[in-house]
Each structure stands twice: as structure tokens, then as C-alpha cells.
């Protein structure tokens, strides 16, 4: 046979695919009909992963910067050089940036390298906004720091609430499952500030004012409890903390919450009633590329808990990750704030991420080891340029090379064994299908080699050996072996003695203790407009994320498709309704100045009825927008998905 089963390496859905291998190279891809979740579907990215795997735009040899130029070197020389240089730094002078696309084996050893060899707790994960918050809330509330439901049970949910995420673009196959469930009778409700594709396909689109998700969720919860619709039997027998949550809700003013959210009282009440009365219900929100803030996740979880929609078939509070191994990275301790197995990193073990360190002015950071770094937008470029030692480990050529002092080429996911954990906690094994370019090593081996140079003799002969170590340290992986992963399409953790076949979803019959209410945010400020700044501008990261992702540039068709809008609006765009555009005195494609208290930028107008009157939407992917307009104001897209800035628009 020339087709071999594998798992897509782009988004967090983890669809099954079949790679066509001929003459030692990947020549094609097909959807895998047997995969239990994706069942023969792929998105535009997945259908073209063979283009990425065929690219010659790779890093083929180790490089060391000498006299300003990157020169080829041997692995031995480059690793020695990197080890020696990096070991000169301590404390907050050094930090490590893991890749959300790298395998569990890669990330486990990177985290181990950082913590045990360099004795540094400073580990971050690129493109990870918000997933840590979601994991934190779900760990505290349910003891399960990831999706509580299962993607394979979407078809059994009677009600599906999509919160914010343009899921049809972020994770198309998850969006497909949701859409097909709706066509089979599930009640699909979207709660978002923009009219996304899934909103158009929903029975109900609750069109929020920007920045008021918390208000809407709090209002719905308050109405549910005031009317006595909460699931009292469930609350009494399975949960703890409801009284405190009720008191919190009682202290909120329903009228002002509803008014701030832009929903009607009837819409709020309707959602509360449906959610409480549904036989089963799931909530989906984006986590990773773009994520909800902790307060919003907490309210969403508490709302579903009050409605009794946690821990049964077809139920769940479900963060959806946008990159293939964000969940796995956290599982093995390569995400910030958690050690392997979700022990909270506290005290000296709680480090700071490269992003946090670079945001300080002046920054204490002097050295960093970075994996992949696919995201093209470089914040704090000037500070990164000043670093004394930057080591980059990665497979693909990237503009980020200009910042690196040592470069170590890695194998792609098709050139080495590795496991990746998708958004529904499914650990899936990708077997090596082709040889890497001559001499190129897998990343996990590079980290082991670095450790060896610094006196730590690890003993991993294969990626499978690394998985054995992971299974020994991460309780939720303790029954995982490559042989078991290969038998079926992976295993969902927890996969341990009590759950040898894995765990599709959280189940009330399987809880060590009660499910806990996490508690809503203390304050609920609503973004305010003023005479000077009468528009609310939403800056959205998720939709066009892959446009500014380096690996997408190595493809042909997906690159063309992600470029489609950019060709129409080369300097970026801001979406306005036709009426608002007319009031400002502009039309589609004409230029407008977007002015905020912290700065301004000039972009083209894109007339769209997908935004509410009085609001505007800007995708973050346009060239200078992030370091320029958004960062200059001190505004950080690191906050919640619903990031909002009051602005005014002036005809340019």
C-alpha cells in the first residue's frame, strides 16, 4: 500500500487522514473515513497538508551566527555552542517557548530540559491565549482540565451553545458536527458579537454587544435561578457551592446586565429556559489561538452546572483548541502555570512566560530557546533583537531566523514518531512515514542531546521511550502505550487503571468528589462608548490566524485562500455596517482612520452586515496593526477573545 494512516497536524480537531507516500516523499492526502470523530472529512488546510510536507523551504542544516551571518555547522558544534551559551543565564534572564504544534514527546523533553537541566520554571507556549484559563476553571470545578464532553457525542446533544467562536473557520470539522447535529434536530444557539457562519446556521443568534459575554452569561444564570429552573436534584446530589453562586447572582442587577449585553429580556429568559430544560447540552468556545477570559469561562461553567448539563451523555463545557497539540502541551507540562499532570506550578516552580518577560520594560530576558514559532507577528521585535542568545529549534524556514543565534533543524511530524492530543483529550499517534532530510533529527532528540551536553544523561532511544516516561509521570496517561494507541484511533485521557480504554467524557458516576461552582467575576465592567469614541471596535484574532502562520505560507492552495481577503484589502480592513459607513461618509474599500485614546491606524472599510450597528471589527492579521495600533495603546490581544476598544472613525 502507499497510503498510510495518520493525524492532521494543523488545528486542535485532530482529524484522521491518509498520507500517500511514493518514492520516499508525501505526494497526497485523503480524508480517513474510519476516524471516529472526523469520519472522512477534512478542511481546506487538512486537504493540503501534503503541500506543507513536500516543501523544500526547510532548515536543512544546523546554523550558528558568526559575525552577523548564520553559517552552517554540525549538530555537535551547534548543540555544544547552544548549551554553553544558554547555561550562562539564570533566573528571569532565560525562558523557554514551546510549540503548540510539536508532539508530546518533544514538549515533554523541552519542559524537562528547562526545569531539570536549566533549573528554569520560565516556560511558555506560543499561540496559547486563554487555554490556561479554561484548564484552570475546569480543573477547579470539575477536576478535568480540558473539554468535559466528547466531540463524538455532539450528535447526541439536544442543545448546543456556541459562544463567540467562528467555529466553522477555526475548527471546521467540529463546526460540521455541530451543524449536522442541528440539522438532525438539535437546538443550535450562537452567542456572539459578530454574525459568524455558525451564527447564520443557528436556530437562534443572540447578537451580543462587544465585550459583554460575561454580562449575558450572568444574566442567563440569574434568570435561571430566579425562576427556579436550575436542576435541583443534580445540584443537591452532585455539586457543592451552589448557595454561594446564588448569592453572587442575587447581588447582580438583571436589568443593567441585560441592557449592557444588548440582548432582550425575552432572549435571556428563553436561553435560560431552554438550557435548563434541554435533555442534554454542550457549550463550545475557542481556547488557544483566541480564548475567553477566566471570568467568562467560570460563568459559562457555573451556568451549565446549575442547569445540570455536565457529566452526562451529550453534555459538556468544551473549549476548542485551534492548534493540534495545545492540550498535549499542557498535559506534559510545557504550558505555563502547570507541571506535568496538571500539578499547579506554585512558588519557585511558577515561572514567567517569555511573553510576560518581554512585556516588562526593561525586560530581564537575555536568552531563550524557542521551538517552531510559527506565528509571524513578532511583538517586542526590538527587545527580541537585543537578546544575547536565542536558540531556535524547528523544521521550516521562517523569518524568525533573523533573530536567532543558533538554529537546530528538526524533523517534521511525518518524519518521526510522535503523539498529539486533540481538543477532546484524544491522544493520537502519528507514525513516521518518510525519512527526514539527511542528518536531520527529531526535536525530542535535540533536547536530549542538549541535556547530555550539560551533563544530564537521559536514556531515550526512541519517541516511544519518551512516551513511557510521560506515562510514568502524567497520571492521566498512565495506561497509554504506543501499541494501545495504534490499535484504534488513539485514546482519550484520563487513560489509567480505572479507565484503561480512555475516557470519552466526564461522567457523574465517575467523580472523586462533588462538582464545584467556581464563582463569577467580582466586577463586570461593560465597555463604554463616549462622544469622542462612539464605536466599539472588536479586534479578532481567530478568524485569520492561519494567514499569519508561517507554515501556511509553505502551502499553495491554503495560502491562496487565506490571502483572498488581503488581496482585496491589502492594508487591512475594518468591518462596518452600510449605514454606519454612510454616516462616516465612506464606502467599501475607501480609507478610514480608526482613532482610539492610545493611537490611530488607517485601514480600508469593508461594508458588512455581520457586525452590529455602532460596532466595528478588525482582524488582527494586518501587517503593522498588532505592534502598531494595538500594542501602542497598551492593549493586548492576550486578553479575552472579545477584546474591545472604543474608537471613532474618520474619513481619511
Amino acid at each position: 500500500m502507499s497510503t498510510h494512516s495518520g493525524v492532521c497536524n494543523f488545528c486542535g480537531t485532530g482529524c484522521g487522514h491518509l498520507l500517500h507516500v511514493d518514492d520516499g516523499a508525501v505526494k497526497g492526502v485523503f480524508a480517513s473515513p474510519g476516524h471516529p470523530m472526523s469520519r472522512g472529512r477534512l478542511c481546506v488546510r487538512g486537504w493540503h497538508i501534503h503541500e506543507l510536507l513536500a516543501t523544500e523551504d526547510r532548515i536543512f542544516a544546523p546554523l550558528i551566527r558568526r559575525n552577523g551571518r548564520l553559517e552552517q555547522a554540525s549538530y555537535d558544534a551547534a548543540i555544544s555552542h547552544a548549551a554553553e551559551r544558554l547555561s550562562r543565564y539564570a533566573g528571569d534572564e532565560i525562558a523557554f517557548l514551546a510549540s503548540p504544534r510539536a508532539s508530546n514527546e518533544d514538549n515533554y523533553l523541552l519542559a524537562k530540559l528547562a526545569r531539570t537541566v536549566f533549573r528554569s520554571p520560565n516556560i511558555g507556549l506560543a499561540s496559547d491565549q486563554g487555554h490556561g484559563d479554561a484548564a484552570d476553571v475546569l480543573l477547579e470545578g470539575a477536576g478535568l482540565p480540558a473539554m468535559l464532553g466528547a466531540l463524538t457525542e455532539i450528535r447526541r446533544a439536544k442543545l448546543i451553545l456556541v459562544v463567540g467562536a467562528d467555529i466553522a473557520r477555526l475548527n471546521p470539522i467540529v463546526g460540521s458536527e455541530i451543524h449536522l447535529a442541528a440539522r438532525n434536530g438539535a437546538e443550535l444557539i450562537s452567542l456572539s458579537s459578530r454574525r459568524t457562519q455558525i451564527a447564520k446556521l443557528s436556530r437562534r443568534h443572540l447578537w451580543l454587544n462587544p465585550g459583554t459575554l460575561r454580562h449575558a452569561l450572568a444574566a442567563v444564570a440569574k434568570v435561571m435561578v430566579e425562576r427556579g429552573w436550575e436542576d435541583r436534584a443534580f445540584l443537591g446530589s452532585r455539586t457543592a457551592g451552589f448557595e454561594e453562586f446564588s448569592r453572587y447572582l442575587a447581588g447582580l442587577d438583571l436589568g443593567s446586565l441585560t441592557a449592557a449585553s444588548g440582548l432582550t429580556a425575552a432572549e435571556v429568559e428563553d436561553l435560560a429556559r431552554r438550557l435548563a430544560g434541554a435533555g442534554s447540552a454542550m457549550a463550545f468556545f475557542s481556547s488557544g489561538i483566541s480564548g475567553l477570559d477566566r471570568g467568562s469561562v467560570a460563568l459559562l461553567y457555573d451556568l451549565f452546572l446549575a442547569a445540570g448539563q455536565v457529566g452526562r451523555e451529550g453534555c459538556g463545557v468544551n473549549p476548542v483548541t485551534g492548534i493540534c497539540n495545545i492540550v498535549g502541551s499542557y498535559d506534559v507540562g510545557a504550558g505555563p502555570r502547570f507541571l506535568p499532570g496538571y500539578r499547579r506550578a506554585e512558588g519557585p516552580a511558577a515561572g514567567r512566560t517569555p511573553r510576560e518577560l518581554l512585556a516588562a520594560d526593561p525586560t530581564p530576558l537575555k536568552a531563550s530557546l524557542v521551538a517552531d514559532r510559527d506565528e509571524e507577528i513578532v511583538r517586542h521585535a526590538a527587545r527580541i533583537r537585543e537578546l544575547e542568545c536565542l536558540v531556535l529549534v524547528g523544521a521550516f524556514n521562517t523569518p524568525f531566523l533573523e533573530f536567532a543565534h543558533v538554529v537546530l533543524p528538526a524533523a517534521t511530524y511525518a518524519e518521526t514518531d510522535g503523539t498529539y492530543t486533540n481538543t477532546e483529550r484524544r491522544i493520537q499517534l502519528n507514525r513516521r512515514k518518510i525519512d527526514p532530510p539527511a542528518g536531520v533529527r527529531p526535536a525530542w532528540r535535540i533536547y536530549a542531546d542538549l541535556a547530555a551536553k550539560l551533563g544530564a544523561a537521559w536514556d531515550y532511544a526512541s519517541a516511544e521511550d519518551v512516551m513511557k516516561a510521560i506515562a510514568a509521570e502524567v497520571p492521566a496517561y498512565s495506561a497509554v502505550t504506543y501499541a494501545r494507541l495504534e490499535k484504534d484511533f488513539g485514546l482519550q485521557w484520563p487513560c489509567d487503571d480505572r479507565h484503561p480504554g480512555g475516557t470519552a467524557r466526564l461522567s457523574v458516576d465517575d467523580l472523586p468528589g462533588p462538582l464545584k461552582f467556581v464563582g463569577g467575576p467580582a466586577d463586570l465592567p461593560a465597555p463604554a462608548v463616549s462622544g469622542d469614541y462612539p464605536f466599539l471596535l472588536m479586534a479578532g484574532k481567530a478568524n485569520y490566524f492561519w494567514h499569519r502562520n508561517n507554515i501556511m505560507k509553505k502551502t499553495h492552495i491554503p495560502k491562496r485562500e487565506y490571502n483572498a481577503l488581503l488581496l482585496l484589502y491589502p492594508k487591512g480592513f475594518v468591518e462596518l455596517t452600510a449605514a454606519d459607513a454612510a454616516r462616516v461618509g465612506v464606502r467599501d474599500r475607501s480609507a478610514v482612520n480608526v482613532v482610539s485614546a492610545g493611537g490611530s491606524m488607517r485601514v480600508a472599510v469593508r461594508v458588512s452586515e455581520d457586525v452590529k450597528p455602532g460596532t466595528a471589527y478588525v482582524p488582527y492579521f494586518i501587517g503593522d496593526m498588532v505592534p502598531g495600533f494595538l500594542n501602542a495603546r497598551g492593549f493586548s490581544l492576550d486578553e479575552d477573545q472579545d477584546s474591545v476598544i472604543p474608537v471613532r472613525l474618520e474619513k481619511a
Partner: protein
Amino acid sequence: MAAALAEDHDLYGPVIDPPGAEPRFDRVEDPAAVRLEAAIPYNPPKSVIFPQAERIMSYTYDRAARRAEIVRDDHVRPKALVGLRACDLTGLLCLDRFFLGQEFVDEVYRDHRKKLFVVANSCVRPFPQCFCVCTDSGPAAREGYDVNLTEAGDDYLFEAGSVKGEVLARRLGLKDAGPGAAALKARIGEAAVARFDAEATQNKAWISRVMNRVTTGFVSNDIWEYIGDQCFECGACSFVCPTCSCFNIEDVAARSGQTDRLRSWDSCSYEGYTRMAGDHNPRQPVEDRRNKRFFCKLSYSQSRKYLRPGCVGCGRCVRVCPGDIGMSNVVTYIRREIAKEGAE
């Protein structure tokens, strides 16, 4: 037979690997791995002669001398494709007519096609996803094969459809089936058709009425928007379709210094597909791209290049679509509109 073909061809056929998996078309080293009885493979066989990604030529350009040296790729090997059901065989004929039967003859495709030996496998029963009886493309294979097999009890009727087929028959030492063979084949075909009502339950699609409507263009824009809203713009319908032939050409600089010209599958569902230099895009909104697809398959003026409807009733697009807009569903939506008008 497969073993004989394997001696001088690369062998391709339906396989089930690992056991219990869905059938797919794949290259086989062991002729015994070919599973003629398998249901319609998930992937269409077109990648055998129209690969998903293919280097069709390479060149080096001497800038100083202003001269290009072009090397046509001569990588095509003889291939035998065994187990094509009538729908897929009809798809192959559509591709033949598209690539070879119009004003411009595609040399790359012709090279693949001339070196292909086709063994069809007439269906004796439908599968749940089938609707070839609606698209006049089965269940029996009619033309375009080198060999056609029809299962008749424990044996197969072997029909040679070309000189190559006859040569194979002699090589295998097959004996004449006798004067009743044609009638037997006809009876088997009728029995297969009779089973559609009960067994081909997923995709009943009354295409002929809709073809008339699509040809004359009276389908309201609301329908196309309804369809467009459900499109996830993944391209899968084009990739699984046995008759879809759209492709993209891309020149890629190789490390060796030469430039490779790649041909790869493309899809009219993509926004960038019809975008032109100057950024004009005659099919920018998704509903315009969706109506293009169904016009291509169902409208007389566009499908006449195939000398038949552009759909072969294989049901793959229905299975692979993340939305719910495979051929049979779209036909149903349009028929509903026709019926509604009739009632008014």
C-alpha cells in the same frame, strides 16, 4: 488475472486495510489484496491518472543567456486499475472527454491514460449511497473498459472491451462463455436495478427534472444562499468526485536550482479559484461558487462536454461534505422549490 496484469503494470484496486477498514483504492503489491466485492471505495480512482499533486515538467532558466531548458517529466508507468464500478468507470470517461475530447488535448493526462489498463466491475447490487440509476451511469458497465467483469454466481463473466482486453483473455486462456452470456449479463443488470428501491436508500435523487430546471436557469438565489451558508469551503466535494478535473498550476523553485511545475487538484468551492489578475472575481460570494458546481454537473450547456450528465451517482460528495450539501441533498432542495411552485 490481477497477477497477470501485475507482471507488467503497477496494480491498483480496492483494498481493505487494515481488516475492517473502509475500502479505498490503493496501490497493491500482492494481487490477492484486491477486493472486488468491496463497497465503493472512499476515494475515487482518478488519482491514478490525474494525481493529487504531480510534477509535470521542470526547467532551468539561464538568466544571462535568456534561455530556458525544459525537461518534460516522463515518469508515467503502466498501471492497471482493477475493480472500477460503473459509476467510477463513467467518471473516467468524463475525464477522458474533458482532457482529451475538447479543442486542447492534455498531453500529461493522455500519457497516463494510454498506459492504463482498465478492469471494470459491473455491480450486481447497489450500496446504500448509490444513485447511478438516476444519473444513467450503472449499475452495469457499458463502455470504456479494457475488461469488464460481471459476477455470476461463483464465476465472473469476462468481457473484453478493447484489443488489450482480448489479448489478456487469450493470455489467461479463458473459454468462451457461450451464446447465453449476453442475456445472462442483461438479467443480472436488471436484477441489480430492481434492488435499488430497497437497498440504495440514502441518496434518491430525481436528477432529470432538476437538470431541466438548472439548464434553463430558473433556480432562485435563495436556494443558492441556503446552500452557500452550509458550505465549509473545504474542497472535498471536488476531490472525491470522479468527474471533477479542476487543477492549479504552480511553479516552485527547487533546492537543486531547477524550477518544478506542479499540477495539483483545485476546487471551484475556493474563493481564490476564479480570482483573476487585477483581483476581479466573478464568483466571490460562496453561493455563486456553489451554483457553479451544480451547473457544471447538471446543466446541459456545461455538462455536454461529457456527452452526459456530470454526476455519476457514486454518493461520495454526500459522505464527505461537512455541511449537508452533497448532490442528492441539493437536488432535493431544488425539487422542493419546483414542487412548491407547482402547488402555487
